[in-house]
Protein backbone atom coordinates (compact mmCIF):
# COMPACT_ATOMS: atom_id res chain seq x y z
CA UNK A 1 0.00 0.00 0.00
CA UNK A 2 1.44 3.27 -1.10
CA UNK A 3 0.69 6.40 0.90
CA UNK A 4 1.03 8.50 -2.23
CA UNK A 5 -0.80 6.45 -4.75
CA UNK A 6 -2.26 9.51 -6.45
CA UNK A 7 -0.34 12.71 -6.11
CA UNK A 8 -0.96 16.21 -7.48
CA UNK A 9 1.82 18.76 -7.26
CA UNK A 10 0.86 22.41 -7.70
CA UNK A 11 -1.68 21.53 -10.41
CA UNK A 12 -3.41 24.35 -12.26
CA UNK A 13 -5.66 24.53 -15.31
CA UNK A 14 -6.37 27.53 -17.51
CA UNK A 15 -8.74 27.37 -20.47
CA UNK A 16 -8.42 29.70 -23.44
CA UNK A 17 -11.97 30.99 -23.75
CA UNK A 18 -13.46 33.32 -26.33
CA UNK A 19 -13.21 36.21 -23.89
CA UNK A 20 -9.65 35.50 -22.79
CA UNK A 21 -8.18 32.96 -20.40
CA UNK A 22 -10.30 31.37 -17.68
CA UNK A 23 -8.49 29.94 -14.67
CA UNK A 24 -10.42 26.85 -13.61
CA UNK A 25 -7.98 25.54 -11.05
CA UNK A 26 -4.97 26.98 -9.22
CA UNK A 27 -2.10 25.45 -7.27
CA UNK A 28 -3.68 22.22 -6.07
CA UNK A 29 -1.39 19.83 -4.21
CA UNK A 30 -2.79 16.67 -2.70
CA UNK A 31 -2.03 13.04 -2.20
CA UNK A 32 -4.22 10.04 -1.78
CA UNK A 33 -3.20 6.76 -0.18
CA UNK A 34 -3.98 3.42 -1.77
CA UNK A 35 -7.28 2.06 -0.46
CA UNK A 36 -8.46 5.45 0.74
CA UNK A 37 -11.92 6.87 0.01
CA UNK A 38 -11.47 10.56 -0.75
CA UNK A 39 -14.24 13.00 -1.64
CA UNK A 40 -13.64 16.18 -3.62
CA UNK A 41 -16.33 18.52 -2.32
CA UNK A 42 -17.25 21.93 -3.67
CA UNK A 43 -19.90 24.05 -5.33
CA UNK A 44 -20.26 23.97 -9.09
CA UNK A 45 -17.50 25.77 -10.93
CA UNK A 46 -14.85 25.04 -8.30
CA UNK A 47 -12.77 22.92 -10.66
CA UNK A 48 -13.21 19.61 -8.83
CA UNK A 49 -14.45 17.79 -11.94
CA UNK A 50 -11.65 19.34 -13.98
CA UNK A 51 -9.15 17.98 -11.48
CA UNK A 52 -10.69 14.51 -11.67
CA UNK A 53 -10.59 14.53 -15.48
CA UNK A 54 -6.92 15.48 -15.31
CA UNK A 55 -6.21 12.61 -12.89
CA UNK A 56 -8.07 10.35 -15.34
CA UNK A 57 -5.68 11.53 -18.05
CA UNK A 58 -8.48 13.04 -20.14
CA UNK A 59 -7.12 16.57 -19.80
CA UNK A 60 -3.61 17.85 -19.25
CA UNK A 61 -2.78 20.26 -16.46
CA UNK A 62 -1.58 23.72 -17.52
CA UNK A 63 0.86 23.78 -14.61
CA UNK A 64 2.21 21.26 -12.15
CA UNK A 65 2.26 17.50 -12.42
CA UNK A 66 0.09 14.50 -11.57
CA UNK A 67 1.56 11.18 -10.51
CA UNK A 68 -0.52 8.00 -10.49
CA UNK A 69 0.88 4.68 -9.30
CA UNK A 70 4.40 6.09 -9.30
CA UNK A 71 4.35 7.45 -12.86
CA UNK A 72 3.76 10.93 -14.14
CA UNK A 73 0.63 10.93 -16.30
CA UNK A 74 0.84 11.31 -20.05
CA UNK A 75 -2.66 10.04 -20.79
CA UNK A 76 -5.17 7.72 -19.14
CA UNK A 77 -3.49 5.31 -16.73
CA UNK A 78 -4.48 1.62 -16.76
CA UNK A 79 -4.43 1.84 -12.97
CA UNK A 80 -7.54 4.05 -12.91
CA UNK A 81 -11.10 3.82 -14.22
CA UNK A 82 -13.59 6.65 -14.41
CA UNK A 83 -17.35 6.73 -13.82
CA UNK A 84 -19.35 9.69 -15.17
CA UNK A 85 -22.52 11.33 -13.90
CA UNK A 86 -24.36 10.67 -17.17
CA UNK A 87 -22.98 7.10 -17.09
CA UNK A 88 -21.59 7.21 -20.64
CA UNK A 89 -23.21 3.94 -21.64
CA UNK A 90 -23.30 3.11 -25.34
CA UNK A 91 -27.01 2.98 -26.22
CA UNK A 92 -26.43 0.55 -29.12
CA UNK A 93 -24.66 -2.00 -26.94
CA UNK A 94 -26.27 -4.46 -24.57
CA UNK A 95 -25.35 -4.27 -20.89
CA UNK A 96 -22.96 -7.15 -21.52
CA UNK A 97 -21.18 -5.36 -24.38
CA UNK A 98 -21.05 -2.12 -22.41
CA UNK A 99 -19.44 -3.84 -19.44
CA UNK A 100 -16.95 -5.59 -21.71
CA UNK A 101 -15.94 -2.44 -23.57
CA UNK A 102 -13.11 -1.27 -21.29
CA UNK A 103 -11.58 -4.74 -21.39
CA UNK A 104 -11.94 -4.87 -25.17
CA UNK A 105 -10.11 -1.55 -25.36
CA UNK A 106 -7.30 -3.04 -23.28
CA UNK A 107 -7.09 -6.13 -25.47
CA UNK A 108 -8.47 -8.66 -22.98
CA UNK A 109 -9.36 -11.96 -24.68
CA UNK A 110 -13.02 -12.82 -25.22
CA UNK A 111 -13.34 -15.68 -22.75
CA UNK A 112 -11.67 -13.65 -20.03
CA UNK A 113 -13.98 -10.71 -20.85
CA UNK A 114 -17.06 -12.92 -20.47
CA UNK A 115 -15.91 -14.24 -17.13
CA UNK A 116 -14.95 -10.90 -15.62
CA UNK A 117 -18.08 -9.18 -16.91
CA UNK A 118 -20.22 -11.86 -15.29
CA UNK A 119 -18.32 -11.42 -12.04
CA UNK A 120 -18.81 -7.64 -12.02
CA UNK A 121 -22.46 -7.82 -13.07
CA UNK A 122 -22.94 -10.12 -10.12
CA UNK A 123 -21.10 -7.77 -7.77
CA UNK A 124 -23.21 -4.79 -8.83
CA UNK A 125 -26.51 -6.65 -8.64
CA UNK A 126 -27.01 -6.78 -12.40
CA UNK A 127 -26.99 -10.53 -12.90
CA UNK A 128 -29.84 -11.31 -15.30
CA UNK A 129 -29.69 -7.93 -17.03
CA UNK A 130 -26.78 -8.68 -19.38
CA UNK A 131 -28.95 -8.83 -22.51
CA UNK A 132 -30.85 -5.59 -21.79
CA UNK A 133 -30.14 -2.28 -23.46
CA UNK A 134 -29.42 0.92 -21.51
CA UNK A 135 -32.73 2.57 -22.44
CA UNK A 136 -34.55 -0.34 -20.81
CA UNK A 137 -32.90 0.36 -17.43
CA UNK A 138 -33.62 2.88 -14.67
CA UNK A 139 -31.09 5.61 -13.87
CA UNK A 140 -29.79 3.71 -10.87
CA UNK A 141 -29.36 0.51 -12.89
CA UNK A 142 -27.51 2.40 -15.60
CA UNK A 143 -25.06 3.78 -13.11
CA UNK A 144 -24.53 0.26 -11.76
CA UNK A 145 -23.55 -0.74 -15.30
CA UNK A 146 -21.14 2.21 -15.39
CA UNK A 147 -19.55 1.06 -12.14
CA UNK A 148 -19.41 -2.58 -13.27
CA UNK A 149 -17.69 -1.51 -16.48
CA UNK A 150 -15.15 0.58 -14.55
CA UNK A 151 -14.32 -2.32 -12.24
CA UNK A 152 -13.68 -4.89 -14.98
CA UNK A 153 -10.14 -3.76 -15.66
CA UNK A 154 -9.34 -4.25 -11.96
CA UNK A 155 -8.38 -0.60 -11.46
CA UNK A 156 -6.40 0.31 -8.38
CA UNK A 157 -8.34 3.56 -8.21
CA UNK A 158 -11.92 4.35 -9.15
CA UNK A 159 -12.46 7.97 -10.23
CA UNK A 160 -16.08 9.01 -9.86
CA UNK A 161 -17.43 12.28 -11.24
CA UNK A 162 -20.67 13.03 -9.37
CA UNK A 163 -21.87 9.51 -10.21
CA UNK A 164 -25.09 9.73 -8.21
CA UNK A 165 -25.83 13.39 -8.90
CA UNK A 166 -28.70 12.71 -11.31
CA UNK A 167 -30.48 10.12 -9.15
CA UNK A 168 -33.40 10.49 -6.77
CA UNK A 169 -32.58 10.53 -3.06
CA UNK A 170 -33.64 6.98 -2.36
CA UNK A 171 -31.74 5.39 -5.25
CA UNK A 172 -28.78 7.54 -4.36
CA UNK A 173 -28.77 6.22 -0.80
CA UNK A 174 -28.91 2.64 -2.07
CA UNK A 175 -26.02 3.13 -4.43
CA UNK A 176 -23.92 4.90 -1.81
CA UNK A 177 -24.22 1.90 0.50
CA UNK A 178 -23.51 -0.49 -2.35
CA UNK A 179 -20.47 1.49 -3.36
CA UNK A 180 -19.09 1.33 0.18
CA UNK A 181 -19.69 -2.39 0.11
CA UNK A 182 -17.84 -2.78 -3.19
CA UNK A 183 -15.04 -0.57 -1.90
CA UNK A 184 -14.70 -2.68 1.25
CA UNK A 185 -14.59 -5.88 -0.78
CA UNK A 186 -12.35 -4.76 -3.66
CA UNK A 187 -10.09 -2.52 -1.59
CA UNK A 188 -9.80 -0.02 -4.44
CA UNK A 189 -8.93 3.58 -3.89
CA UNK A 190 -11.90 5.87 -4.60
CA UNK A 191 -11.71 9.51 -5.63
CA UNK A 192 -15.27 10.80 -5.57
CA UNK A 193 -16.42 14.22 -6.78
CA UNK A 194 -19.60 15.58 -5.24
CA UNK A 195 -21.33 18.84 -4.37
CA UNK A 196 -23.37 17.17 -1.63
CA UNK A 197 -22.01 17.65 1.88
CA UNK A 198 -24.06 14.75 3.25
CA UNK A 199 -22.80 12.45 0.54
CA UNK A 200 -19.18 13.37 1.28
CA UNK A 201 -19.59 12.89 5.04
CA UNK A 202 -21.36 9.56 4.50
CA UNK A 203 -18.72 8.15 2.16
CA UNK A 204 -15.29 9.62 2.71
CA UNK A 205 -12.27 8.86 4.81
CA UNK A 206 -11.08 12.32 3.93
CA UNK A 207 -12.85 15.30 2.35
CA UNK A 208 -11.01 17.80 0.18
CA UNK A 209 -12.92 21.07 0.18
CA UNK A 210 -12.68 23.23 -2.94
CA UNK A 211 -13.64 26.89 -3.33
CA UNK A 212 -14.44 28.52 -6.68
CA UNK A 213 -13.03 31.28 -8.92
CA UNK A 214 -10.40 30.10 -9.37
CA UNK A 215 -10.83 26.56 -8.05
CA UNK A 216 -8.53 25.99 -5.11
CA UNK A 217 -8.12 23.39 -2.41
CA UNK A 218 -9.32 25.24 0.68
CA UNK A 219 -9.20 22.57 3.38
CA UNK A 220 -8.69 18.89 4.05
CA UNK A 221 -11.07 17.38 6.59
CA UNK A 222 -10.61 13.88 7.98
CA UNK A 223 -13.79 11.96 8.76
CA UNK A 224 -13.30 9.67 11.73
CA UNK A 225 -16.93 8.71 12.25
CA UNK A 226 -17.38 4.93 12.62
CA UNK A 227 -18.87 3.05 9.65
CA UNK A 228 -21.63 2.45 8.80
CA UNK A 229 -22.44 6.09 9.38
CA UNK A 230 -25.75 7.42 10.58
CA UNK A 231 -26.75 10.73 8.98
CA UNK A 232 -28.89 11.51 12.05
CA UNK A 233 -26.02 11.11 14.52
CA UNK A 234 -24.53 14.01 16.44
CA UNK A 235 -21.06 13.67 14.90
CA UNK A 236 -22.47 13.54 11.35
CA UNK A 237 -24.47 16.73 11.91
CA UNK A 238 -21.56 18.56 13.50
CA UNK A 239 -19.24 17.72 10.60
CA UNK A 240 -21.86 18.69 8.04
CA UNK A 241 -22.28 22.06 9.80
CA UNK A 242 -18.55 22.62 9.80
CA UNK A 243 -18.31 21.88 6.06
CA UNK A 244 -21.33 24.06 5.32
CA UNK A 245 -19.47 26.94 6.94
CA UNK A 246 -16.37 26.24 4.83
CA UNK A 247 -18.33 26.23 1.58
CA UNK A 248 -19.95 29.48 2.62
CA UNK A 249 -23.51 28.29 2.10
CA UNK A 250 -25.53 28.47 5.26
CA UNK A 251 -28.53 27.05 3.47
CA UNK A 252 -26.55 24.02 2.36
CA UNK A 253 -25.18 22.95 -0.96
CA UNK A 254 -27.82 20.35 -1.74
Amino acid sequence: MSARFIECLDVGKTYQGRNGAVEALRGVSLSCAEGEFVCLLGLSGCGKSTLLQMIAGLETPSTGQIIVAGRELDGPSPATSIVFQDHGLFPWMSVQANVEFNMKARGVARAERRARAAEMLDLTGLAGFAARYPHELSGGMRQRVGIARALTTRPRALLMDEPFGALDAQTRGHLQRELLDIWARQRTTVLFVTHSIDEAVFLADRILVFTPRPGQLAAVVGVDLPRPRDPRSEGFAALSRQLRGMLGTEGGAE
Partner: protein
Amino acid sequence: MRIGRFVGLVPLLGLILLWQGAVWAQIYPPVLLPAPMKVLGAFGGHGGEILANTMASLQRVAIGIGLAFVVGVPAGLLIGRFAVLDRLFDWSIQTFRSIPPISLIPMAMLFFGIGDQPAIVLIFLAGLWPLLLNTIFGVRGIERTLLKVAAAAGAGEALILRDIILPAALPNIFTGLRLAVGGGWLTVVTAEMIAVKSGLGYMILNAQMTFRPELIFAGIIVIGVVGLLGDFGVQRIRRLACSWQEGLTANAT
Protein backbone atom coordinates in the same frame (compact mmCIF):
# COMPACT_ATOMS: atom_id res chain seq x y z
CA MET B 1 -57.72 7.26 -32.74
CA ARG B 2 -55.81 4.65 -34.70
CA ILE B 3 -55.41 5.40 -38.37
CA GLY B 4 -55.07 2.41 -40.69
CA ARG B 5 -51.76 1.67 -42.32
CA PHE B 6 -52.96 2.20 -45.84
CA VAL B 7 -54.65 5.53 -45.30
CA GLY B 8 -51.77 7.02 -47.31
CA LEU B 9 -53.34 5.48 -50.42
CA VAL B 10 -56.44 7.69 -50.16
CA PRO B 11 -55.02 10.82 -51.84
CA LEU B 12 -53.48 8.66 -54.56
CA LEU B 13 -56.82 6.96 -55.31
CA GLY B 14 -58.46 10.40 -55.29
CA LEU B 15 -55.99 11.54 -57.89
CA ILE B 16 -56.84 8.58 -60.13
CA LEU B 17 -60.56 9.41 -59.83
CA LEU B 18 -59.81 13.02 -60.76
CA TRP B 19 -57.82 11.77 -63.74
CA GLN B 20 -60.69 9.53 -64.85
CA GLY B 21 -63.04 12.49 -64.44
CA ALA B 22 -60.82 14.65 -66.62
CA VAL B 23 -60.81 11.94 -69.30
CA TRP B 24 -64.63 11.69 -69.21
CA ALA B 25 -64.97 15.47 -69.38
CA GLN B 26 -62.63 15.40 -72.40
CA ILE B 27 -60.63 18.38 -71.16
CA TYR B 28 -57.72 17.09 -73.22
CA PRO B 29 -57.98 14.92 -76.34
CA PRO B 30 -57.47 11.22 -75.54
CA VAL B 31 -54.27 11.13 -77.59
CA LEU B 32 -52.70 13.43 -74.98
CA LEU B 33 -54.41 12.18 -71.84
CA PRO B 34 -55.06 8.44 -72.03
CA ALA B 35 -57.63 6.89 -69.68
CA PRO B 36 -56.38 5.10 -66.53
CA MET B 37 -57.58 1.78 -67.91
CA LYS B 38 -55.61 2.32 -71.09
CA VAL B 39 -52.46 3.01 -69.09
CA LEU B 40 -53.14 -0.12 -67.09
CA GLY B 41 -53.40 -1.93 -70.38
CA ALA B 42 -49.94 -0.65 -71.31
CA PHE B 43 -48.53 -2.65 -68.40
CA GLY B 44 -49.93 -5.72 -70.10
CA GLY B 45 -49.03 -4.83 -73.66
CA HIS B 46 -45.56 -3.45 -72.91
CA GLY B 47 -44.94 -5.42 -69.73
CA GLY B 48 -41.61 -6.85 -70.88
CA GLU B 49 -40.35 -3.51 -72.11
CA ILE B 50 -41.33 -1.75 -68.88
CA LEU B 51 -39.76 -4.44 -66.72
CA ALA B 52 -36.49 -4.49 -68.67
CA ASN B 53 -36.15 -0.71 -68.51
CA THR B 54 -37.06 -0.61 -64.82
CA MET B 55 -34.38 -3.19 -64.09
CA ALA B 56 -31.85 -1.19 -66.12
CA SER B 57 -32.62 1.97 -64.11
CA LEU B 58 -32.59 0.11 -60.79
CA GLN B 59 -29.26 -1.49 -61.57
CA ARG B 60 -27.66 1.89 -62.30
CA VAL B 61 -29.03 3.38 -59.09
CA ALA B 62 -27.89 0.37 -57.08
CA ILE B 63 -24.34 0.60 -58.45
CA GLY B 64 -24.13 4.40 -58.20
CA ILE B 65 -25.55 4.64 -54.70
CA GLY B 66 -23.55 1.58 -53.61
CA LEU B 67 -20.36 3.32 -54.70
CA ALA B 68 -21.46 6.56 -53.04
CA PHE B 69 -22.07 4.64 -49.80
CA VAL B 70 -18.72 2.88 -49.91
CA VAL B 71 -16.92 6.18 -50.49
CA GLY B 72 -19.14 8.65 -48.62
CA VAL B 73 -19.63 6.86 -45.31
CA PRO B 74 -15.99 6.04 -44.49
CA ALA B 75 -14.90 9.49 -45.70
CA GLY B 76 -17.61 11.09 -43.58
CA LEU B 77 -16.56 9.11 -40.50
CA LEU B 78 -12.96 10.26 -40.90
CA ILE B 79 -13.80 13.88 -41.71
CA GLY B 80 -16.23 14.03 -38.79
CA ARG B 81 -13.69 12.48 -36.45
CA PHE B 82 -10.59 14.47 -37.40
CA ALA B 83 -10.80 18.26 -37.40
CA VAL B 84 -7.76 18.52 -39.68
CA LEU B 85 -9.56 16.64 -42.46
CA ASP B 86 -12.66 18.74 -41.92
CA ARG B 87 -10.70 21.95 -42.37
CA LEU B 88 -8.97 20.52 -45.43
CA PHE B 89 -12.11 19.38 -47.25
CA ASP B 90 -14.93 21.60 -45.98
CA TRP B 91 -14.72 24.27 -48.68
CA SER B 92 -14.40 21.68 -51.45
CA ILE B 93 -17.43 19.77 -50.20
CA GLN B 94 -19.51 22.92 -49.94
CA THR B 95 -18.50 23.92 -53.47
CA PHE B 96 -19.18 20.61 -55.19
CA ARG B 97 -22.37 19.72 -53.37
CA SER B 98 -23.98 22.91 -54.74
CA ILE B 99 -23.58 21.65 -58.31
CA PRO B 100 -26.69 19.76 -59.48
CA PRO B 101 -25.56 16.41 -60.95
CA ILE B 102 -27.78 17.06 -63.97
CA SER B 103 -25.64 20.03 -64.94
CA LEU B 104 -22.72 17.64 -65.31
CA ILE B 105 -24.44 15.52 -67.97
CA PRO B 106 -22.73 17.22 -70.93
CA MET B 107 -19.33 16.78 -69.35
CA ALA B 108 -20.05 13.20 -68.33
CA MET B 109 -21.01 12.43 -71.93
CA LEU B 110 -17.79 13.97 -73.23
CA PHE B 111 -15.73 11.84 -70.87
CA PHE B 112 -17.71 8.60 -70.87
CA GLY B 113 -19.78 8.68 -74.06
CA ILE B 114 -23.29 7.25 -74.17
CA GLY B 115 -24.16 4.33 -71.93
CA ASP B 116 -24.09 3.14 -68.33
CA GLN B 117 -20.93 4.91 -67.28
CA PRO B 118 -22.01 8.56 -67.42
CA ALA B 119 -25.32 7.69 -65.70
CA ILE B 120 -23.61 5.80 -62.89
CA VAL B 121 -21.11 8.60 -62.35
CA LEU B 122 -23.92 11.14 -62.05
CA ILE B 123 -25.93 8.93 -59.66
CA PHE B 124 -22.78 8.43 -57.63
CA LEU B 125 -22.39 12.20 -57.33
CA ALA B 126 -26.07 12.67 -56.52
CA GLY B 127 -25.74 10.18 -53.66
CA LEU B 128 -22.29 11.08 -52.43
CA TRP B 129 -23.03 14.50 -50.93
CA PRO B 130 -26.05 13.62 -48.82
CA LEU B 131 -24.28 10.50 -47.54
CA LEU B 132 -21.05 12.33 -46.81
CA LEU B 133 -22.65 15.34 -45.14
CA ASN B 134 -25.09 13.34 -43.04
CA THR B 135 -22.34 11.00 -41.89
CA ILE B 136 -20.19 13.96 -40.85
CA PHE B 137 -23.20 15.46 -39.09
CA GLY B 138 -23.86 12.19 -37.27
CA VAL B 139 -20.27 11.89 -36.07
CA ARG B 140 -20.32 15.46 -34.77
CA GLY B 141 -23.51 14.86 -32.84
CA ILE B 142 -22.01 12.09 -30.73
CA GLU B 143 -22.34 12.51 -26.99
CA ARG B 144 -19.02 13.73 -25.61
CA THR B 145 -19.08 11.50 -22.56
CA LEU B 146 -18.98 8.44 -24.84
CA LEU B 147 -15.72 9.60 -26.38
CA LYS B 148 -14.34 10.29 -22.93
CA VAL B 149 -15.24 6.77 -21.84
CA ALA B 150 -13.36 5.41 -24.83
CA ALA B 151 -10.34 7.65 -24.26
CA ALA B 152 -10.18 6.81 -20.55
CA ALA B 153 -10.36 3.10 -21.39
CA GLY B 154 -7.37 3.50 -23.70
CA ALA B 155 -9.33 2.45 -26.80
CA GLY B 156 -7.45 2.56 -30.10
CA GLU B 157 -8.66 4.68 -33.00
CA ALA B 158 -9.89 1.66 -35.01
CA LEU B 159 -12.03 0.43 -32.13
CA ILE B 160 -13.41 3.94 -31.54
CA LEU B 161 -14.38 4.30 -35.21
CA ARG B 162 -15.97 0.86 -35.47
CA ASP B 163 -17.66 0.44 -32.09
CA ILE B 164 -18.53 4.04 -31.21
CA ILE B 165 -18.40 6.54 -34.07
CA LEU B 166 -20.06 4.32 -36.69
CA PRO B 167 -23.02 3.17 -34.57
CA ALA B 168 -23.47 6.68 -33.18
CA ALA B 169 -23.65 8.08 -36.71
CA LEU B 170 -25.83 5.28 -38.08
CA PRO B 171 -29.21 7.02 -37.73
CA ASN B 172 -27.83 10.01 -39.66
CA ILE B 173 -26.19 7.72 -42.20
CA PHE B 174 -29.63 6.28 -42.92
CA THR B 175 -31.05 9.77 -43.31
CA GLY B 176 -28.27 10.36 -45.84
CA LEU B 177 -29.04 7.08 -47.58
CA ARG B 178 -32.70 8.01 -47.85
CA LEU B 179 -31.84 11.30 -49.49
CA ALA B 180 -29.22 9.61 -51.68
CA VAL B 181 -31.61 6.96 -52.96
CA GLY B 182 -34.20 9.64 -53.70
CA GLY B 183 -31.66 11.85 -55.44
CA GLY B 184 -30.17 8.92 -57.33
CA TRP B 185 -33.57 7.91 -58.63
CA LEU B 186 -34.28 11.45 -59.85
CA THR B 187 -30.89 11.59 -61.50
CA VAL B 188 -31.10 8.23 -63.26
CA VAL B 189 -34.32 9.17 -65.04
CA THR B 190 -32.91 12.48 -66.22
CA ALA B 191 -29.60 10.97 -67.27
CA GLU B 192 -31.38 8.25 -69.24
CA MET B 193 -33.28 10.85 -71.20
CA ILE B 194 -30.01 12.22 -72.50
CA ALA B 195 -27.03 9.96 -72.11
CA VAL B 196 -28.30 6.37 -72.18
CA LYS B 197 -30.25 4.18 -74.57
CA SER B 198 -32.18 2.17 -71.97
CA GLY B 199 -33.98 2.66 -68.66
CA LEU B 200 -37.23 4.33 -67.65
CA GLY B 201 -36.08 7.81 -68.66
CA TYR B 202 -35.17 6.59 -72.13
CA MET B 203 -38.43 4.64 -72.37
CA ILE B 204 -40.54 7.72 -71.59
CA LEU B 205 -38.69 9.90 -74.05
CA ASN B 206 -38.92 7.17 -76.68
CA ALA B 207 -42.65 6.75 -76.03
CA GLN B 208 -43.11 10.46 -76.63
CA MET B 209 -41.25 10.29 -79.94
CA THR B 210 -43.20 7.22 -81.10
CA PHE B 211 -46.41 8.79 -79.79
CA ARG B 212 -47.48 6.26 -77.18
CA PRO B 213 -48.85 8.48 -74.34
CA GLU B 214 -50.07 5.48 -72.34
CA LEU B 215 -46.48 4.26 -72.10
CA ILE B 216 -45.34 7.72 -70.93
CA PHE B 217 -47.88 7.54 -68.13
CA ALA B 218 -47.01 3.98 -67.29
CA GLY B 219 -43.34 4.98 -67.02
CA ILE B 220 -44.16 7.90 -64.74
CA ILE B 221 -46.22 5.64 -62.49
CA VAL B 222 -43.42 3.09 -62.26
CA ILE B 223 -40.95 5.83 -61.36
CA GLY B 224 -43.20 7.07 -58.57
CA VAL B 225 -43.98 3.62 -57.18
CA VAL B 226 -40.36 2.47 -57.26
CA GLY B 227 -39.37 5.70 -55.49
CA LEU B 228 -41.92 5.01 -52.78
CA LEU B 229 -40.83 1.38 -52.36
CA GLY B 230 -37.17 2.42 -52.25
CA ASP B 231 -37.93 4.79 -49.41
CA PHE B 232 -39.85 2.08 -47.55
CA GLY B 233 -36.90 -0.26 -48.01
CA VAL B 234 -34.36 2.18 -46.59
CA GLN B 235 -36.60 2.93 -43.62
CA ARG B 236 -37.08 -0.74 -42.91
CA ILE B 237 -33.33 -1.42 -42.89
CA ARG B 238 -32.88 1.61 -40.68
CA ARG B 239 -35.36 0.27 -38.15
CA LEU B 240 -33.52 -3.05 -38.06
CA ALA B 241 -30.07 -1.50 -37.77
CA CYS B 242 -31.01 1.17 -35.24
CA SER B 243 -33.39 -0.80 -33.04
CA TRP B 244 -31.51 0.48 -30.00
CA GLN B 245 -32.92 3.91 -30.82
CA GLU B 246 -36.47 2.84 -30.05
CA GLY B 247 -37.67 4.59 -26.97
CA LEU B 248 -34.90 7.18 -27.23
CA THR B 249 -36.41 9.49 -29.80
CA ALA B 250 -39.92 10.85 -29.96
CA ASN B 251 -40.43 9.80 -33.55
CA ALA B 252 -38.19 6.85 -34.32
CA THR B 253 -40.01 5.62 -37.39
